[in-house]
């Protein structure tokens, strides 16, 4: 599950087929009404179609062929817009379906008839309903909150309570409640589920990629207002143009007023159809990209807010450092050879299956170059909470490793002591952000192993990028301030919170928010839930507890804390795509004016042909070319809308400069070339 699906082909033939069909279905006026810009085009299309029918019946307002051609292309404009939305929906739906298939959801053993203990059905935990009875054996997860109706078992509830000691759960009394996500360690339980599981996140996500159900995000609403306002302006421009031109005909004594067909064509060209057509597709595609990254959003708002985040709270372990500490050096005590320390440390760790233990073995192997001895005749002494040491007994040899104070107690009890040099080494390691492990054989202290958090490769560069984008990174760790500071410096985060507790985390988030900043964080434990609920963007790990998942507004199915950074990037990309296409759409209008205005008044004021800088073949060809360009540009930009604009982290000023150049200047120039080319093609095909 930890691999991102390779991006599906943008134009999958099967998807396209469905999308074409959907595009026609979406011509229904009720569907169009959701988008004021496209609804205006719809009304225009209907109007020109009526004009075309009238023209065919002999009541022409403009050349019949021209009116018919405009009508056809106006319908194409709508179809292209619908197609873009249908494509985005189709891709999103395919993505969700794929996720559904591949997800190995927690399964529950359901007893359809509680009296009959022999008939057991395996069903997904999410399919459980209140009142269902399940049986849970040792080593299985409790599928949902419930009440024990039979059995006694020890249950590991550390995921919920943070308390590592197992607890007993049995039927009756006040120890009968079990919590979803906890694990049965021994024996078995029969549990009646007491809550309906929340709607599955995937179902909710699918709601976000269906245009009809999708709630618009705040920025989308604001942009919608801008687009609607522009539509009103252009509607007024076009409506008043008729009396203006009648007046012009009146005073110049030549020509005819602008035809209604040309007016509708002008209107459709001027209103921001490009962004209007793609707006919904952009939003859906943004959700889809999240899904592709195995992130399930519970609302579109959360994805958009991710683009606004100013502060990232990152857990040290797993995000900034690789999961565990690793041995990086042996520091022998005076009079002890490094090889002896390495050999003993390796022996002490042979039976230690923790990552730290294995890293000591690996380091010793590197230093000694010899293979590890066999475990024959070795008695492993596992780590215990009382001694806080682990090690081995080989015959009479007792080799131990552990925290400095525990080992010191151990050697003192045997008549030995920790030398000043060892104390100094321990202090030095702690100061530099490492964890010292002292190794002793009997009363003799051999030296210190340095365990260190290993900062992930490339993470520093990532933080530098974030800083350039104006995002502050804060490392959250339970370590002491000394260690935390050292790791923070190494990883290049802007700030850190040491000795973090859930309360301090929550306080930190509130503090940043009071300063007007938007905070994002990841979390998985129940104790993270308050902070997750407080954060503006809260990414809960799928592996986390139910409480954490409920508090988060995004769920990371991979449980990869680094994902937060990608989420922020996806949120930004969605906003940038909208802004870029809005700019492009508006800049396009300049060329369209140069095409249509001289054409519209060619008969009344021939002098205006001076404005026809593109030297288009004829007035009808000019108008038709502009309308065709306006329709085709939607198709051309569909891939951009679905993928999002290319984006690299940079400062706001640099981003603006680049996007303004590409989409502003590009939007100004491109239609001049496009309209001219279409005009040439129309002439070549004898269509104008």
């Amino acid at each position, binding site marked *: 599950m930890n691999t991102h699906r390779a991006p599906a082909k943008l134009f999958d033939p099967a998807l396209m087929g469905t999308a074409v069909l959907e595009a026609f279905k979406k011509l229904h006026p009720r569907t169009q009404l959701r988008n004021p810009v496209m609804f205006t085009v719809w009304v225009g299309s209907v109007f020109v179609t009526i004009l075309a029918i009238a023209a065919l019946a002999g009541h022409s307002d403009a050349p019949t062929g021209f009116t018919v051609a405009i009508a056809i292309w106006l319908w194409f404009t709508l179809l292209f817009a619908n197609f873009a939305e249908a494509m985005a929906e189709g891709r999103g739906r395919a993505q969700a379906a794929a996720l559904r298939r591949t997800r190995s959801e927690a399964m529950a053993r359901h007893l359809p008839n509680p009296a009959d203990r022999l008939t057991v059905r395996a069903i997904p935990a999410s399919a459980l309903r209140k009142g269902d009875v399940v049986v849970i054996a040792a080593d299985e997860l409790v599928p949902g909150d419930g009440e024990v109706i039979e059995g006694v078992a020890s249950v590991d509830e550390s995921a919920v309570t943070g308390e590592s000691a197992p607890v007993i759960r049995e039927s009756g009394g006040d120890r009968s409640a079990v919590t979803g996500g906890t694990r049965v360690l021994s024996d078995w339980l029969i549990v009646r589920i007491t809550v309906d599981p929340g709607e599955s996140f995937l179902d909710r996500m699918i709601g976000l990629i269906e245009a009809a159900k999708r709630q618009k995000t705040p920025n989308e609403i604001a942009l919608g207002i801008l687009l609607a306002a522009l539509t009103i*302006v252009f509607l007024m421009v076009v409506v008043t143009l008729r*009396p203006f031109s009648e007046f012009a005909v009146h005073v110049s004594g030549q020509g005819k007023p602008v035809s209604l067909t040309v007016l509708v064509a002008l209107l459709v060209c001027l209103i921001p159809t490009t962004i209007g057509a793609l707006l919904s597709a952009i939003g859906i595609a943004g959700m889809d990209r999240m899904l592709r990254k195995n992130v399930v959003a519970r609302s579109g708002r959360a994805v958009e807010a991710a683009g606004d985040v100013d502060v990232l709270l990152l857990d040290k372990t797993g995000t900034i450092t690789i999961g565990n500490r690793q041995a990086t050096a042996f520091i022998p005590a005076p009079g002890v050879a490094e090889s002896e320390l390495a050999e003993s440390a390796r022996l002490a760790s042979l039976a230690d299956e923790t990552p730290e233990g294995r890293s000591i073995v690996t380091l010793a192997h590197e230093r000694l170059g010899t293979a590890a001895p066999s475990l024959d005749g070795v008695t492993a002494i596992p780590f215990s909470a009382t001694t806080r040491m682990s090690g081995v007994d080989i015959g009479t040899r007792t080799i131990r490793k552990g925290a400095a104070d525990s080992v010191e107690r151990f050697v003192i009890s045997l008549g030995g002591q920790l030398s000043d040099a060892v104390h100094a080494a321990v202090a030095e390691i702690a100061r530099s952000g490492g964890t010292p492990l002292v190794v002793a054989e009997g009363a003799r202290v051999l030296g210190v192993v340095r365990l260190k958090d290993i900062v992930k490769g490339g993470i520093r560069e990532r933080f530098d990028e974030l800083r350039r984008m104006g995002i502050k990174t804060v490392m959250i760790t339970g370590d002491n301030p000394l260690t935390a500071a050292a790791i923070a410096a190494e990883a290049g985060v802007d700030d850190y919170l040491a000795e973090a507790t859930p309360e301090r985390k929550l306080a930190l988030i509130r503090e940043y928010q009071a300063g007007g900043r938007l905070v994002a964080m990841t979390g998985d434990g129940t104790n993270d839930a308050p902070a997750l609920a407080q954060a503006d963007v809260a990414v809960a790990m799928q592996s986390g507890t139910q409480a954490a998942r409920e508090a988060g507004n995004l769920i990371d199915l991979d449980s990869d804390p680094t994902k937060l950074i990608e989420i922020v990037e996806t949120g930004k990309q969605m906003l940038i795509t909208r802004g870029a296409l809005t700019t492009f759409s508006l800049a396009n209008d300049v060329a369209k004016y140069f095409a249509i205005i001289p054409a519209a008044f060619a008969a009344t004021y021939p002098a205006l042909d001076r404005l026809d800088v593109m030297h288009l073949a004829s007035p009808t060809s000019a108008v038709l070319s502009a309308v065709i360009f306006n329709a085709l540009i939607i198709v051309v930009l569909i891939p951009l809308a679905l993928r999002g604009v290319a984006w690299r982290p940079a400062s706001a*000023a640099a981003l603006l400069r680049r996007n303004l150049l590409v989409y502003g200047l590009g939007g100004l120039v491109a239609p001049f070339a496009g309209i001219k080319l279409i005009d040439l093609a129309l002439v070549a095909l004898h269509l104008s």
Partner: protein
Amino acid sequence: MTGNALVQLALFAAVLIGLGLPLGSYLARVLSGERTLLAPLTTPIEKLLLRIAHVEPTDEMTWQRYATALLLFSGAGFIAVFLLQVAQARLPLNPDHLTGVGAVLAFNTAISFVTNTNWQSYAGESTLSYLVQMVGLGVQNFVSAAAGIAVMAALLRGFARHSSSTIGNFWTDLVRVTVHVLLPLSVVLAVLLASQGVVQSFSGAVAATTLADHAHATQHIALGPVASQEAIKQLGTNGGGFFNVNSAHPFENPTPLSNFLEVVAILLIPVACCFTFGRMVRDRRQGWALFAAMAILLAGAIVVTLTAEQRGTPALAAAGATGPADAGQPGGNMEGKEVRFGITNSALWAVATTAASNGSVNAMHDSFTPVGGLAPMALIQLGEVVFGGVGSGLYGMLLFALVTVFVAGLMVGRTPEYLGKKIEAFEMKMVMVAILAPALAVLAGTALGAALSAGRAGIFNGGAHGFSEVLYAFSSASNNNGSAFAGLSVNTTFYNLLLGLAMFAGRFLVAIPVLAIAGSLAGKTLVPASAGTLPTHGPLFVAMLLATIVLVGALTFVPALALGPIVEQIQLVGQGVIR
């Protein structure tokens, strides 16, 4: 452009900025209730006025209360000016025994002065008594200007405050601006103008016997309290002249120096407002950025108009009426211009008066070359944001800044923010209402004027020029400029009513949304700036702001302009004749 023109323009710019900077700081202090240099003189008057009005200066208002106060005050002003006009025959200070003004004209004039438009359908000296001029129009010249600055102050507080439900007190703002800023400036300017020969008199018109036609013809030379009116007319971007020909009249604007003072006065407060803005939002660079955007558009318009007028037209050249500029002759198109001002000062005035929503004229814009007249018209149609009216120009420009920030903000991948305030759906809605209202009023009014016989009846010139006249009239009224293109008979029921409505829309359908934005912004928290924040003080932002203003203006008005001045110019140049 001639060397002489360049020197004059440079001097103009230097004086304007030199005076605008300190005035901007002063205005910011006044609006923030801080003590100023003039306090010993002005504060007692302020306190007295507020006490008479029972206003508690610290009584902070929500935007709704602020807007209500603005509307009540303007409504009262409207009724007062209307009644004064209708009843002037029975009131004192009417030495020429002028009759009462008709209801429709009185309606138009009252709205015009209350909205700081000062469109004049009437001929000042032969229609209105001294009492109406002084107590009606003169008072509105002050308070409509002060009201504009008050609305601006409220918006600036919206940006500067955070998590606040109030945006200041309208009455306090109104009184402070009038007493501390407009009155002292007007007194100084009136004295300076009087020194140049601008009349200040309560006597009726002087009858003089002329030598015309060797007959003893009698000419009535109008007089009046002109200098005092003239000062506030320019400073408050009012523009309503005492005389019909406005500042082309030798008693309003007799000398090149009076002309210079007046044209500086037109732009002085609007320029200062940029710097006031910078100070009040505690980031002076923001003020300079808006100033730069406005100055670039102004400079562009000056260059266009000046070169067009200096070049003249092929028809004038063919008639031998234009020649090169030299020490004795201004050259160029002198039709409709005063010889004492020449090309440069007429063009500069035309651009300044249309950039600021002043509307006073010292030359007839109707007689400008098509392109020379296009630049002033375009400045008006951009929404009076190139310095614009006192207060209203800056808040108009801030509306465009919000649109720019919105599009630019999306392009950098964040919820758009300006000066630390997030710009969301509510603000966008209000911004769009404020930008749309005047534009729609221009288009709708012009369409009615061009389509209906009542509208066509008033059009004096044929061809595309007649259309330009109607377009100019509605552009001027809807954007509260008040200058006229002439050539259009506007003192008809049709134009008086329609233009009156356009002026109302252009003022209050902008000011009320602006106050709503102020209220909404004041309640928001401040987002601290970071590298991810779009900088709004650099050249890039200024360029994008300019592009937004020009694009919105052009997209709205290009079809109309194409049928007016653009086709006129092409015909003129292409065929070598006018029409």
